[in-house]
C-alpha cells in the first residue's frame, strides 16, 4: 500500500500550488470598427423547438440593416445558439459566446430558467440584454442595469383583457384557467386586479399542469360554474385540448387567451379550426397586417429567410431587436456599452412594430400595453382593439 501515501502527498502538493490562483473573467469586446456582434439563445431542437424561431429572426433584421450599409458603418452580426430549453446548456453556450466570440448585446433569449441562470453573469461581464422573449418579474423588479424588457407583463395583460371582456363584451361570469407556474399565476393576478377593482369575483379559478392532457373535469367545472367567458394562461397544447374538450360537450364560452397563444395560423391548424373566434392579447402588430412597418419586415423575411414562416414568434424576434438597433443608431460613431446603456435608458415612447417603449434608469419594464386580437376564418388576424394601457398597473405608481 505504499503507493497510496505517495499519491496523496503528490495530490496535496499540486493542489496547494495551484488551487487559489484566481483567474479573473473578462469578456472579449463585443464590437470593432467593422461589426457589432449580437446573439440570441433559444430551443432549436427538443420539445420546445417551436419557440426557437424567435432567436433566428434577428438575423433578418441584421441582413436588412447590413444591406443598407450597417449602423454608422458597422455591420450587425447575429449568432444563434441552441440550448434545448435547458438552463445548463444556456449557461455553457452564453459563456462561450461572451468570452470567445465577444457579444455586445443579447436579444430575445427564450426560457425563464435559462435567462435567470445567466442574467447575473451577463451583468458582471457588462453585456446588454434587450427584449427577453418572455415576461419574468425577476428580470425587471428590482431593476437590472443591463437588462431591458420589452414584453408586457402577463399581469397587465390579464387586467386589460378582463376589462375588455366585462366592458366591451358585457360578460360578468368569468372563469380563469391558469398554468401552475409564474406565467399562469401572473395572468391570474391580473384578472384578480381588475375584478377587485370592479368589486367582482371570478366564478372559477382552475390551475392546470403543463403536462396534463385530460382536461374534461376542468371543463365540466367551468361549465357548472356557469362561466360565460374563460380566460386562459396556459401552454398552447393545453389551450387546444381545453377548447376541443369543451366543444365535444357542447360548452361554448367566449375563450380569451394570453398572447403566447396568439399564433393564430398555427393554433387554428392544430385545433382543427376551433381557434376561430378566440380572443387573445398581443404584444405587436399582426404579422399579416398591411402596416408599412410590418410589410417591410415581411418582404425582408421572404428575401433573407424564405424557408421561415412569418408567424407571430418569428416577427417577435425582430420586434425585440428593434429598440437595440434604435439605440445603436442614436449613439452614433463613438460606440461603447456605456453610451448604448445611456441611449436605452433615455428611450421614450419609442415604437416599432411592438408596443410603445419607455425606459429610464430606474424602470426597465418598457411596455405596459397590449393589443387585442381575434382569430378570424383560416387563422387571419382581426384587430379588435389597438394599443391599450393598463391604468391599474401597480409597478408604475411610485
Amino acid at each position, binding site marked *: *500500500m505504499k503507493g497510496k501515501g505517495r499519491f496523496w502527498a*503528490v495530490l496535496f502538493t499540486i493542489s496547494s500550488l495551484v488551487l487559489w490562483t484566481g483567474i479573473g473573467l473578462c469578456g472579449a469586446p463585443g464590437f470593432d470598427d467593422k461589426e457589432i456582434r449580437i446573439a440570441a439563445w433559444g430551443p432549436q*431542437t427538443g420539445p420546445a423547438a417551436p419557440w426557437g424561431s424567435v432567436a433566428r429572426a434577428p438575423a433578418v433584421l441584421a441582413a436588412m440593416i447590413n444591406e443598407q450599409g450597417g449602423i454608422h458603418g458597422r455591420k450587425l452580426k447575429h449568432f444563434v445558439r441552441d440550448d434545448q430549453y435547458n*438552463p445548463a446548456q444556456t449557461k*455553457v453556450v452564453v459563456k*462561450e459566446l461572451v468570452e470567445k466570440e465577444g457579444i455586445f448585446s443579447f436579444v430575445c433569449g427564450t426560457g425563464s*430558467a435559462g435567462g435567470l441562470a445567466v442574467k447575473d453573469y451577463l451583468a458582471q461581464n457588462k453585456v446588454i440584454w434587450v427584449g427577453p422573449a418572455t415576461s419574468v418579474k425577476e428580470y425587471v423588479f428590482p431593476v437590472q442595469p443591463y437588462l431591458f424588457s420589452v414584453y408586457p407583463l402577463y399581469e397587465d395583460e390579464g387586467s386589460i383583457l378582463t376589462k375588455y371582456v366585462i366592458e366591451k363584451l358585457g360578460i360578468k361570469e368569468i372563469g380563469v384557467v391558469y398554468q401552475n407556474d409564474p406565467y399562469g399565476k401572473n395572468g391570474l393576478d391580473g384578472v384578480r386586479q381588475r375584478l377587485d377593482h370592479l368589486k367582482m369575483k371570478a366564478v372559477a379559478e382552475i390551475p392546470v399542469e403543463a403536462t396534463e392532457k385530460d382536461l374534461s373535469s376542468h371543463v365540466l367545472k367551468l361549465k357548472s360554474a356557469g362561466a360565460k367567458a374563460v380566460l386562459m394562461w396556459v401552454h398552447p397544447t393545453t389551450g387546444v385540448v381545453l377548447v376541443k374538450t369543451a366543444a365535444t360537450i357542447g360548452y361554448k364560452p367566449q375563450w380569451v387567451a394570453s398572447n403566447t397563444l396568439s399564433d393564430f395560423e398555427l393554433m387554428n391548424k392544430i385545433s382543427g379550426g376551433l381557434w376561430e373566434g378566440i380572443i387573445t392579447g398581443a404584444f405587436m402588430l399582426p404579422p399579416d397586417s398591411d402596416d408599412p412597418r410590418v410589410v417591410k419586415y415581411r418582404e425582408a423575411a421572404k428575401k433573407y429567410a424564405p424557408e421561415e414562416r412569418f408567424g407571430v414568434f418569428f416577427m417577435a424576434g425582430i420586434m425585440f431587436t428593434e429598440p437595440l438597433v434604435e439605440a445603436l443608431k442614436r449613439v452614433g460613431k463613438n460606440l461603447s456599452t456605456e453610451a448604448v446603456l445611456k441611449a436605452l435608458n433615455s428611450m421614450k415612447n419609442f415604437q416599432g412594430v411592438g408596443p410603445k417603449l419607455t425606459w429610464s434608469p430606474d424602470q426597465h419594464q418598457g411596455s405596459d400595453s397590449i393589443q387585442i386580437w381575434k382569430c378570424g376564418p383560416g387563422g387571419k388576424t382581426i384587430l379588435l382593439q389597438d394599443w391599450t394601457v393598463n391604468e391599474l398597473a401597480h409597478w408604475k405608481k411610485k
Partner: protein
Amino acid sequence: MDMKRDYYEDVQLFESNVVLFWTVVLLVFLFTLPLYVPSYRFSLFNLVLVHVILAVGLNILVGNTGQISLGHAGFFAIGAYGTTLLMTKLGLPFVLALPLAAFISSAFGFILGLPALRLEGPYLSIATLGFGLTVTHIIGHWDFFGGRTGLQVPPLDLGGGFILKTDVQKYYLILIITIFLVLSARNLLKTRVGRAFVAIRDSDIAAEVIGVNLLIYKTLSFAVSAFYAGIAGGLFGFVLGFFNPEPFNLILSIVFLVMIVVGGLGAIAGSIMGATLITILQYSLLKNIKEVPYVGPFMVDISSRWFTVIGLENLNSIVLGLIMIAIVIFEPLGIYGIWLRIKKYWRTWPF
C-alpha cells in the same frame, strides 16, 4: 503480465509505477488546466465532472450490481434541491449541506432498492422510471421547492467567508470531490462489498447460495449509487446558479445510462470516459460550426436544403446519435473496450 500473485496485489491502488507515473501526469494536467484552456470552457468542464461523479455511481449500480435505474435524474434532483434548500432554509454551511443532501438522496435510494429485491429487468426499470418522474412532479408542485419557477442557488461559501465565485474556482472544488469519489468507488469495488455486487450481477441466486445477503447488498448498491447522484446534483446546482425542475426529466436519466453504456459497463474508467465524451458532444459539438469559414456555410447549405428550417442544430442531434450507435455496435464494451485494445496492442509492440 496481469497475473496476480497475492491478494494485496489485487487491492493495491496502482498496479505498477508506470500507472502511478501516468496518474500523476494526468492529475498535474487536470490541476493546471486553467493555464492552457480559456476560462469560458470551465462551465462545460464543471458539468463534465458532475456527470463523471454521477456516471461512476450509476455504474456501480448498473455495471457492477446488474440492476437498472431509469430514475437517476430523480436522485440528481434530490441532491440539487436538498443542498440548496438546506443552505437557504436551514442556513447550513455548504460542507454540511452537500453530504447531508446526498444522504437524503441515498435514503431514497435505499427505499427504491426494496422493490429491486422482487423486480428485475424491465419491471425494475418501470419502477425506477416512476420514481424519477414522481420526484420532479412533486418538486414542481410545491412552492417550498420553488415550484416551476425554480430556485436561486446561494453563493458557494466554503466556510469562513471564503466564497467560490468563478468557474475556475468551482472547477477545483468539484475536481477534488470527483477524485475523492472516484477513488472511493474503486476501493469499494475491491472489497467484500464490491465482490458481493459482482456476484449479484452474475447470478443473484448463486450469490445468495454462497452467503451474500441480497437484502443488504441490493439496497446498499442503490443507496451508494444514489449518494453519488446526490453529490453530483448538489454540485450541479452551483454550476448552474439557478435551476428549475425541467432539466431533471426522463431524457436526462436516459442520457446518464447512455454515458455508462457508451463508456463501458462495470468499469470506472469507462464511466469517466463515457461521461466526458457524451457531455462534451451534447453541449458543445458542432455548436459553433456555423461560424467556421467554408465548412460552416457548406453545412448550413446542406441543412437548409435537406433538413427543416431549424437547420444545423438537427445535424448535431444526428451526429450525436450516430456516434453513440457506432460505439455500441462496433465496441460492445464501450470506449473502455477500445482503450483496452489499444493497451493490448502496445504491450506487444513492435512484435
